[in-house]
């Protein structure tokens, strides 16, 4: 689809030929993740995480459909039905622990995938649409993850739902009406649980749909690469299959080993003890914290402690939290540096690592109780977060002097020895 030297699909037998003339599905696969998709030859292991995200989604959908066969979305018996899965359903404990830890692993690989895109400038022209669709997937994942955490109907489920829908109540005038509309009541209850279950089942398939668009948009310009230099000719690329399918197979193995270690030997490490207590509207847990993957955003929410003019602190916090994600949609136009890869951007590189540390600090503060010194630290860290994207990146994209870059991907891989590079073809 993208490069003129891409291998063409040729049906190997009469049936495939017949099929190709009527529904060219094998051709589509061949062109998108097969030998017909030329990919830069110099991708490093950080390029494994896109495929790993897809693998995580498949694990979530499969285990989720199975759990839904045994789970009861009714506030009276939801908690007991989860225990029924854990104790009585054959392999039920395995499905539930895979699903609960799989969600965390989905977010881990997606966060690495996002930070890879940030460092190597994958969001820049001509791949802006890939980046935007990726952010849509991220938002859908957050909604799905939040609603999924409500389903076991433990204390954190209930109070998480209360706090997160309470964010909408911060909107002036119509806020409370919106919260009641979201919950279908005055507090989280059966109505809320049922609609969250319905949407939690639906959204993963929406995510799968947006992933198809994400990959479609990627295949027009082709994959980015660690040097950020455009592909110049056949010598720069290598067919996706068998080269990157083999590499992704290895990556998937490592991913599954790590997932298995958590599922089988520390299945509750990433969870919260309070969620093994059934939801009780009359008793609040001492620290309400969301799942770990929301902690950085939760820290930004809580960093706003002072009312400014007519804006109460809570509304400011909610605005800032949404802004912290929405601003990523404008990133391709905020960072105008023509150099994509952070490798050749000496200043950008420093700020990038500060950002990584900053998000880690925000995450730590978001999981900590809302006391000093965590509030002050999260205020400092939130300041940097906004400054990084809205002030520092636009400024350094004007002032920075990029390092000298190689002329081509092949040169980056082989040094100046052009002759050694032969166009690679699928056998």
């Amino acid at each position, binding site marked *: 689809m993208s490069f003129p030297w891409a291998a063409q699909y040729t049906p190997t037998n009469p049936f495939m030929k017949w099929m190709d003339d009527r529904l060219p599905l094998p051709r589509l696969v061949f062109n998108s993740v097969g030998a017909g998709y030329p990919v830069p030859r110099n991708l490093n292991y950080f390029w494994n995480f896109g495929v790993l995200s897809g693998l995580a989604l498949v694990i979530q959908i499969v285990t989720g459909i199975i759990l839904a066969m045994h789970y009861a979305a009714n506030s009276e018996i939801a908690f007991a039905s989860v225990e029924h899965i854990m104790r009585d359903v054959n392999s039920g404990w395995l499905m539930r622990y895979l699903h609960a830890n799989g969600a965390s692993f989905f977010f881990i690989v997606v966060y690495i995938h996002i930070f890879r895109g940030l460092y190597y400038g994958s969001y820049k022209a001509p791949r802006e649409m890939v980046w935007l669709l990726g952010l849509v997937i991220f938002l859908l994942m957050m909604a799905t993850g939040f609603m999924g955490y409500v389903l076991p109907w433990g204390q954190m489920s209930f109070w998480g739902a209360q706090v997160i829908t309470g964010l909408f109540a911060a909107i002036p005038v119509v806020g409370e009406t919106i919260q009641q509309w979201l919950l279908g009541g005055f507090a989280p209850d059966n109505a809320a649980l049922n609609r969250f279950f319905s949407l939690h089942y639906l959204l993963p398939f929406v995510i799968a749909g947006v992933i198809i668009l994400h990959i479609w948009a990627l295949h027009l310009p082709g994959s980015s690469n660690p040097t950020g230099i455009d592909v110049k000719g056949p010598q720069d690329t290598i067919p996706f299959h068998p080269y990157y399918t083999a590499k992704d197979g*290895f990556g998937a193995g490592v991913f599954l080993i790590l997932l298995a270690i958590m599922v089988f030997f520390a299945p509750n490490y990433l969870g919260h003890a309070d969620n093994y207590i059934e939801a009780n509207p009359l008793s609040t847990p001492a620290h309400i914290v969301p799942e770990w993957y929301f902690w950085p955003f939760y820290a930004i929410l809580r960093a706003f402690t002072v009312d400014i003019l007519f804006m109460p602190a809570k509304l400011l916090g909610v605005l800032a939290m949404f802004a912290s994600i929405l601003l990523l949609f404008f990133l391709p136009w905020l960072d105008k540096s023509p150099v994509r890869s952070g490798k050749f951007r000496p200043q950008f590189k420093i700020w990038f690592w500060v950002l990584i540390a900053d998000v880690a600090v925000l995450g730590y503060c978001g999981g900590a109780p809302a006391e000093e010194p965590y509030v002050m630290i999260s205020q400092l860290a939130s300041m940097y977060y906004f400054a990084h994207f809205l*002030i520092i990146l636009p400024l350094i994209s004007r002032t920075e002097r990029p390092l000298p870059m190689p002329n081509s991907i092949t040169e980056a891989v082989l040094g100046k020895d052009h002759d050694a590079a032969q166009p690679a073809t699928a056998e």
Partner: protein
Amino acid sequence: MVRIIGFLVGLGFVGVLGYSLIIGAIAYMTEEEPGPTAYDYHHHAREISFASDGPLGRFDRQQLQRGFQVYREVCAACHSLEYVAFRNLTDLGFTEAEVDAIADQWPIQVPTVNEDTGEDTTRNAIASDHFPHVYANEVAGRAANNNAYPPDLSLMTKAREEGAAYVYSLLAGYEDPPADLPEEFQPGTGLYFNPYFANLNLAMPPPLSDGQVSYADGTEATVENMAEDVTAFLIWTAEPKMEDRKNLGLIVLIFLIFATTLAFLAYKNVWRDQKH
């Protein structure tokens, strides 16, 4: 244009945050040193190890049976075990006949309906029943216990920070309040001091005393031993499939490591002629 608006929005957020930070920092500096809090007298759970710890840990069936005895003779008077069924006790090494007898002799009966009249009545428990609730409902539980509802114990070792170590420490950790304990943290009437409990004082009187049960296997019934045994039992009630999980885990890991090694070799094989 995007960058100018972004710049202003960024400055706005940074400004508000900076202002909040200054206000917070001033308040933090000028605030008086707060008096002692309950947290200053709170202890972290004691270190304790169980046979079931670690990837290779398995339950000690003898200990689980002793723990069940402590639950039955001490805890079951107030605390339910609603997610566990009598039939599950075969996991502890009881025979089916023994389980039937335990269910049949359980002091609390199971609600049912009279076949002839349709009136509510009760019957003896059978193996397929879950452990019956001690109180008909939470209100009855509160009324019988000075307004403190005894929680269900099925998931207790997973439902508290520090898990099993916390349960053990709490059971074995009752002590007299320290001499310097401020008035506000002194146990009121009907409350008992326990430094492992986050609020320092709890409504449950010390449940265990030396020699309270007599173990059939000759283990000495000290408070420490009983607390440890019943905690081991509660680890099992919270996670009855733990042994299945660890056994399957080892097999899965061995397979995955083998498969991933092969995948790595295949990857290197495919790429052997390609510089990258």
